């Protein structure tokens, strides 16, 4: 069980890094600074969006693979416990997570294509939309994972 708990912690840490990166990028893209950055919020918005692309793709793929691996253990341990405890909404929302994670994964080729350098002005709107959608998916998955882990986490 220590092995799976360690994997889950690594998965959560990677998800946290991904969440930070995609949030930085989405905010910088949708709410860019017009004047020199002074405050914390302004500096948060002033990051160069392009530099996050590779990190986000790598983090998403690695986090996804780890999550898919841990899922095998969850399926016949934590989930059975959740069902016995009649936590059906928690189980249901985790079912949603598997689909959301898949949608995020298949969005990555388009995300990468629209962020290729030199950035094409033709794809500016598509770039913004895809980045926002990916950010929403990552946030949703992070929150769902957190809720499920609080309900009946690995090793509990």
């Amino acid at each position: 069980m220590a092995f799976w708990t360690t994997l889950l912690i690594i998965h959560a840490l990677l998800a946290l890094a991904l969440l930070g990166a995609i949030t930085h990028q989405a905010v910088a893209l949708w709410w860019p600074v017009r004047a020199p950055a002074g405050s914390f919020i302004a500096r948060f918005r002033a990051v160069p969006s392009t530099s996050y692309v590779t990190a986000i793709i790598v983090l998403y793929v690695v986090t996804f693979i780890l999550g898919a691996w841990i899922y095998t253990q969850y399926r016949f341990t934590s989930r059975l416990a959740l069902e016995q405890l009649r936590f059906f909404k928690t189980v249901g929302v985790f079912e949603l997570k598997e689909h959301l994670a898949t949608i995020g994964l298949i969005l990555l080729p388009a995300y990468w294509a629209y962020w290729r350098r030199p950035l094409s002005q033709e794809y500016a709107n598509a770039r913004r939309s895809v980045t926002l959608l990916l950010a929403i998916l990552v946030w949703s998955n992070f929150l769902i994972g957190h809720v499920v882990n609080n309900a009946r986490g690995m090793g509990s």
Partner: protein
Amino acid sequence: MIAADKIPIFAFAFGIAYAVIYVICTEVNLPLFTYHPAIGQIDLLWQPPKRGPVMYWYGWMLTSLIGALVFAWIAIAVPEPWLQRVITFGCIGAVAYLILYTVALFIYDKATV
């Protein structure tokens, strides 16, 4: 090798096709393989549970991956107006499916026996 200007078309077509095929795979249950996590066994195509629960998600993803790759390769070969028509039709179909499915669920939920 894909020409540089075809890459966004390939990626976009891949994403849409994958989503559509994935929904079909989950609804009709079309996994390319079935995984039994409790015994660590993998079977080809759909199989019923053996000992413990069964997982089809990985199989659905593989089925959708193959289908989406085929569609994306076709998409970069056909003229763009055709592709746009197919994608528009697919998007309308997806929205119609969502509405019909929601209505059906609502009726099922409210219907008296």
